[in-house]
C-alpha cells in the first residue's frame, strides 16, 4: 500500500513512540493514491506521523482532514498520484509537511480554484481554500496537461 523511505515504522498510533522518537523511525512516508481506500490510508499515515511530532488532538484532526481533502482531489481529478508526509525541523520548531502531487489534467485557473464555492466536480467547492485555512503554509503549482502539486505545512504551536 505504501512505501516508507526509511524503516517503515509508521504505525506509531498507540505504540508509545509518540513521545520518544528514535532516529531510525521513518520521517518521511509516501502513500500512493489510486482509490478512495488510499485516502483513508494517507490520512492515517499523516496522523500517525503528526502524533509523533507531538501535535495535540485538535491539530491531528486538522492535519488528517487536510490530507483527506488533498488526497480526494487526486482521486477525483487525476485518478492517481501520491501524498508524501514529512517531519519538518527549523531550529527548535517542529512541524509536518504534506505534499500531494499528480500528473492529472491540472487546474486551468488556480485563482478561481482558491475561491470558496468554486468546484468543477460537483463537490462543495471548499476543498483548497478550506485546506489553506487548516494549515499554516500553503503552496500550489499546477500546469494544464501536466499535473498539480500542493504543498502544505503545519507547525507545532
Amino acid at each position: 500500500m505504501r512505501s516508507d523511505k526509511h524503516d517503515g515504522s509508521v504505525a506509531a498510533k498507540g505504540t508509545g513512540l509518540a513521545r520518544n522518537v528514535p532516529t531510525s523511525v521513518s520521517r518521511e512516508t509516501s502513500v500512493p493514491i489510486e482509490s478512495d481506500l488510499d485516502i483513508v490510508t494517507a490520512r492515517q499515515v499523516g496522523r500517525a506521523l503528526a502524533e509523533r511530532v507531538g501535535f495535540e488532538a485538535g491539530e491531528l484532526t486538522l492535519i488528517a482532514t487536510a490530507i483527506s481533502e488533498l488526497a480526494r482531489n487526486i482521486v477525483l481529478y487525476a485518478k492517481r498520484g501520491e501524498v508524501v508526509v514529512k517531519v519538518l525541523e527549523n531550529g527548535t520548531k517542529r512541524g509536518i509537511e504534506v505534499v500531494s502531487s499528480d500528473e492529472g489534467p491540472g487546474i486551468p485557473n488556480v485563482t478561481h480554484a482558491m475561491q470558496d464555492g468554486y468546484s468543477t466536480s460537483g463537490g462543495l467547492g471548499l476543498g483548497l481554500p478550506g485546506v489553506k485555512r487548516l494549515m499554516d503554509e500553503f503552496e500550489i503549482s499546477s500546469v494544464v496537461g501536466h499535473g498539480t502539486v500542493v504543498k502544505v505545512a503545519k507547525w507545532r504551536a
Partner: protein
Amino acid sequence: MEVPILKQGDYLIASIQSALSDSDLAQLRDAVVEKVGRFRSRGVIVDVTVLDVMDSFSTRILRDLAHMIRLRGARTVIVGVQPEVAFTMVQLGLRLEGIATALDLEEGLAYLDETGEKES
C-alpha cells in the same frame, strides 16, 4: 467495512465502528434509505463518535442521507460529532444546516422521542 444498522423499535441506529472510505459511506447512505422503508422506521440515528475526520465528502453524504430520509417520511439525527471534528468542520466551512444533531446516542433517542410525540 460495512456499518451495522440496528433496528430498535421505530428507529434505525447506524453505528459507525471504524474509519470509512467514501464508498463505505455511500453504501451506508443507500442501506439506510432502503431499510427505513423495509422496517417502516420513523427515525434514524447515525452515530459518528468514532470518526476522527469529517471532511467535505463525508459531510455531504450525511447531509444527503438526512434529506433522503426526510423525503422517505422519517427523521435523522447525527450523534457523536467530536469536539476536534466540530472545530475542523467549522474551519473548513462545512455545515450540517437543517440537520438534527445530538451529543450522543442517548440524547439522539430522546430527540427522536420528543419530536415524534409532537408530530402524533
